[in-house]
C-alpha cells in the first residue's frame, strides 16, 4: 500500500466511496489550502472493496452534514498528537443548503440563481431529499456534482 506520512494534528476522512474523493477534496477547498493534505484513491477496503481517503494536516471546520449527505459510511478521525481523539460517524442531515443544485429544468431555482438550493430529508430509510421549491426527489449519496463552495476563510 501507498504510504503517506502520518499527521500530527489534523483530520482523516475515511471510508469515502471510491471515486468521490476528488469532489470532496475540491469542495473542502483543499486544493487551494496553505496546509498539506493528501487525497488517496482506490485504497483496498474490507468493507467496501475500494475506498478513497483524505488526510488533512490541520484541524479545520468541516460541515459534517455535507459529508453525511454524500455518504453516511464516511468517518472523520480527529488526530491530536498523532492519536485519534475522536471518531465521528456521518449521519443524514435534516437539511442541506447550497450543496447540490436541483436538476429539474422546470424548477424556479434554475432561473432565479440567488435562491438558496435547499433540500430537506423526507425519507430516512430511502435517504430521499426533496427540493424545497419544486419537490423533486433526490437520493442522497447518488449526487456528487457538488456546487462550487464560496470560501470566506
Amino acid at each position, binding site marked *: 500500500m501507498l504510504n503517506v506520512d502520518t499527521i500530527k494534528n489534523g483530520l482523516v476522512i475515511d471510508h469515502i466511496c471510491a471515486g468521490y474523493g476528488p469532489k470532496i477534496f475540491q469542495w473542502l477547498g483543499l486544493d487551494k489550502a496553505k496546509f498539506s493534505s493528501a487525497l488517496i484513491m482506490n485504497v483496498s477496503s474490507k468493507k467496501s472493496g475500494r475506498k478513497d481517503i483524505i488526510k488533512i494536516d490541520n484541524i479545520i471546520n468541516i460541515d459534517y452534514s455535507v459529508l453525511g449527505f454524500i455518504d453516511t459510511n464516511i468517518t472523520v478521525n480527529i488526530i491530536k498528537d498523532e492519536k485519534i481523539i475522536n471518531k465521528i460517524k456521518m449521519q443524514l442531515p435534516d437539511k442541506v443548503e447550497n450543496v447540490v443544485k436541483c436538476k429539474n429544468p*422546470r424548477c*424556479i431555482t434554475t432561473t*432565479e440563481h440567488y*435562491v438558496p438550493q435547499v433540500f430537506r430529508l423526507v425519507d430516512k430509510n430511502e435517504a430521499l431529499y426533496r*427540493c424545497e*421549491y*419544486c*419537490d423533486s426527489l433526490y437520493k442522497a449519496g447518488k449526487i456528487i456534482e457538488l456546487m462550487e463552495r464560496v470560501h470566506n476563510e
Partner: protein
Amino acid sequence: MLTGRHLIEPNDLSVNEINEICSLAEQIIVDPLSFQDVCRGKILAALFFEPSTRTRLSFEAAMLRLGGSVEGFADSSSSSTTKGETLADTIRVISSYADIIAMRNPKEGAALLASQYSYCPVINAGDGGHFHPTQTLTDLLTIRQLSGGFENHVVGMCGDLKFGRTVHSLVQALSRYPNNKFIFISPQELQMPDYIVKNVLEPAKISYRVVERLEDAISELDILYMTRVQKERFFNEQDYIRLKDSYILNNEKMKMAKKNMIVLHPLPRVNEIAPEVDNDPRAAYFRQVKYGMYVRMALIAKLTGSL
C-alpha cells in the same frame, strides 16, 4: 386564522380551514349582494407570467364582485422580467401596491419563492405542473355543493392520471376525509404515480382500484372526474387506437352511470366529453367554473382579512 396567509399548495389549508372557506363561499352563493363591498378599496394583482385566460378572469371576477380592483398582466412579455428583473424584485415592488397577489408562473416553486419576498398574501394560481390549489378548492366546493359533502364517495378519476396535477391534488384532498374510495381509470402509460399510492393512499388505508376502461367502472361512481388524454402521451399508436374511445364520455356511457353521479372536468375540454353530455343534469363542469369564482371570492376575502 387565514388573514395574511399565503396559499401555495392545497395542503397549506387544514380541513377546518377548507370548511371555513367553503362555508363562506356558500354564503356568497346564497346572497352575493351582501358581499359586494367587502373588498372595497383593496387591490388584487393578477400576475400571469404565462397566459391562462380562464383562471385569470376567475380571480379578477372574484375580486370585482367583492368590490375590489384589479391590476396586473396577462403574460410575461408585459412584465419587468423581460428586462431581466428577478422574480423576487418584481414581487417586492408589486406587493407594495397590492393587497393580495394571484400569480401564475411556468416554473415549479415560483409561488413559494414569491411568498418569501411578498409583503402581502400570495395565492398560487398555478406553478407549472406543480400546484394549483384554487382548482382543488373549486373541485371541493363543487363536490360539497352537488354531492352533499366530502365523505363516503366513490370517486372515479379518468384519463391522464400521470401528468394531471389536478387529479393528484384532489386525491390528496379527498383522502383527508373518511370513507372515500377511488377508481383510477387510465391507460397503463398514464396511471396514477406511485408516490400518490405510496404516500397518500396506503398510509391512510384508502381503498382504490385501477381499471383500463371507463365502461368497467362508471356504474359504481358517485363522482367522475374527467381529464384529457393526449395522443402524444401514448407509447404507441396501436394502444392509442385501442383505448382512445374508452376515455371519451358520451351519452351511451352516461346511461350506465348512477342517476346522481356528477361529472367534473378542470377544463379546457377538447374531445374527452362529447357535447351531447352537456345537457345531462349530471354534467357539472360548467357549474364547477362558477363555483371556482365563488371559492376564490371566499379565499380573497379571508386572506385579505376583509371578513
